[in-house]
């Protein structure tokens, strides 16, 4: 190596290219794994049916009340007619304000059945979840999500305390452990947040609140009649999920002239996520590929300069018996050695991707908190995963770049007239 600095800069170009191939692929993989986890947390064997408010011009109105969504009759029909459904959970949820001793939290009041705990994988921290007997007896019991409990009871033990939800009172019988948000359902892209929930028996909700909900907004009052917010069906095995979903859709379509519900199949989401992941990877790979090409151009540039500078040496070597291909080999070996060095160092640094991205996110938290807060949850919590295939890929590309971009300068060197080259000063 004649010029250590020059060689170093050449290596740097390839190094950045290779490291970014590995990094970008690792970040892509990290994000898509996170997305998959969220989807999986919906349950791969589940089918989720949610009530959706249809566009206002299509809505059936009985008087002033907007009536839409899945019904108790739908629930009964689905459970009774589809044999592959092993378990079914219906819930009714409302946005409500919870208060205790002057502290208030706005959150989701969820009327549910004991199975709900299993199906959304809620873990109980203390106390217990809603039981069948609570449903039968229309008990005014509630279970708090971790976030709700923390906000309403920052200093006390919530168990046995009575919280207020609008004009009703409920005794706290259990507190859940914190739960990660899961993927959005029902046509929404936002992740489902479980942190400020309150769970009560669904029968109690029907008895106390009923189906009709009034909301006052900007001076006018709106009334909505919804029987069920969501039905989650659990299918016996994965293979039956898609056919069952088809039957569910057909059944519902019969009784709902307008589309006031949405069917989410996490399994389908999962498959979609896989295709998205592929696209994402290709995209990331492309970006990284561009940086490798830039590195390659850098190599070519420097090799051209080197060839010009070493014209005389080339002339001497030719005079002493080097054939054209000897000269090509000499320069090609040099570029390939440089690009290989860049490749190896890039791979080594590429393996540090998880560490570095964690560091970057951590630093962002302090240096630019506003930017940090605006990042989606999935970016904040993801960990880059180095894709094993990206290592030989990046290395192969680095060597290929060395050969491709080294070939032209090498050929130029070899095609010089030895007489001219010898005369070159």
């Amino acid at each position, binding site marked *: 190596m004649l010029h250590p600095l020059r060689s170093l800069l050449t290596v740097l170009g390839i190094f950045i290219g290779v490291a970014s191939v590995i990094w970008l692929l690792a970040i892509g993989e990290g994000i898509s794994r996170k997305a998959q986890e969220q989807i999986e947390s919906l349950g791969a064997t589940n089918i989720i049916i949610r009530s959706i408010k249809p566009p206002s011009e299509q809505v059936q109105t009985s008087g002033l009340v907007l009536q839409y969504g899945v019904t108790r009759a739908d629930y009964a029909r689905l459970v009774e007619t589809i044999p592959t459904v092993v378990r079914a959970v219906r819930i009714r949820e409302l946005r409500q304000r919870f208060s205790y001793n002057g502290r208030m939290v706005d959150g989701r009041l969820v009327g549910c059945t004991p199975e709900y705990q299993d199906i959304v994988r809620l873990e109980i921290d203390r106390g217990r979840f809603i039981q069948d007997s609570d449903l039968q007896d229309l008990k005014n019991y509630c279970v708090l999500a971790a976030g709700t409990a923390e906000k309403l009871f920052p200093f006390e033990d919530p168990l046995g305390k009575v919280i207020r939800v609008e004009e009703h009172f409920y005794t706290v019988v259990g507190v859940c452990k914190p739960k990660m948000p899961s993927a959005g359902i029902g046509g929404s892209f936002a992740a489902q947040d479980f942190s400020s929930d309150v769970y009560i028996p669904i029968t109690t909700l029907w008895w106390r609140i009923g189906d009709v909900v009034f909301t006052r907004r900007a001076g006018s009052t709106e009334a909505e009649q919804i029987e069920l917010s969501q039905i989650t069906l659990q299918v016996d095995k994965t293979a039956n999920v898609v056919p069952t979903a088809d039957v569910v859709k057909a059944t519902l379509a019969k009784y709902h002239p307008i589309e006031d519900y949405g069917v989410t199949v996490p399994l389908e989401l999962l498959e979609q996520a896989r295709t998205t992941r592929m696209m994402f990877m290709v995209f990331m790979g492309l970006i990284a590929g561009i940086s490798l090409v830039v590195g390659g151009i850098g190599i070519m540039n420097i090799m051209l300069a080197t060839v010009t500078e070493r014209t005389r040496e080339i002339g001497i070597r030719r005079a*002493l*018996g080097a054939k054209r291909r*000897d000269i090509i080999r000499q320069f090609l070996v040099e570029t390939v050695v440089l690009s290989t060095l860049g490749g190896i160092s890039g791979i080594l640094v590429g393996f540090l991707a998880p560490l570095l991205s964690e560091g970057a996110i951590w630093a962002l938290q302090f240096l630019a908190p506003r930017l940090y807060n605006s990042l989606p949850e999935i970016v904040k919590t993801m960990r880059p995963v180095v894709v094993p295939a990206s290592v030989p890929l990046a290395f192969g590309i680095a060597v290929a770049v060395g050969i491709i971009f080294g070939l032209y300068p090498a050929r130029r060197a070899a095609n010089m007239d030895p007489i001219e080259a010898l005369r070159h000063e």
Partner: protein
Amino acid sequence: MRLGASIQEITKEYHLGGEVVHALRGVSFDVPEGDYVAIMGASGSGKSTLLNLLGCLDHPTSGKLFLGDENVAEASDDRLAEIRASKIGFVFQSFNLIPQLTVLENIEVPLYYQRRLSPKERARCKELAEMVGLGNRLYHRPTQLSGGQQQRVAIARALVNDPLFILADEPTGNLDSATTEEIMALFDDLNRQGKTIILVTHEYDVGRRARRIIRLKDGRIESIIDNPQAKPRSELPEDVAKAKAPQ
């Protein structure tokens, strides 16, 4: 008598912007093995062209050029490279050592391109370096050597492939007179040992040491003179002269 090189009716034309330049207009001469020839002439006489042709760096436009018994006038580019590697020893005016290689490595270069670098050959390279008086500079770089030392390395390099002839292009052009004397003495020595030397020079002081002087003018041979001033071979002890003299 074996021939080192034989040039028969060589012409060389260059095309420069539509005009034809006749650099050589039919040149013939033989260089027997063991000969010591100086090619002299003013610039533009065709000296350099002839040198390039003898050095197998270029093809003649017409004529025959025998090196040993091979006509190289129409040899392929690769074949010419092989001939340069195996049959010709170059010594240049500006030494032309490769700066990043050591003395020993510079001497080894022609062997490298013949794919015959072996420990035995390497030992021979060391011997050659010692012969030219650089046995204690084997691992120095050219920039650490004086001009005369560099030229000695170049001469050792020219000898390493045991060439048909040494082709020296103004070998003393960049040297002072004392060093010139040293280098020329080395050439004289080599010739006495039986090496064929073709010297291209415009310096009479250098040219007169050769046994024959070929003068070129306008692409033609003006004269071929047997040089009476050359140190006669009889200076050698009789038996050595006989043994070394071409048959």
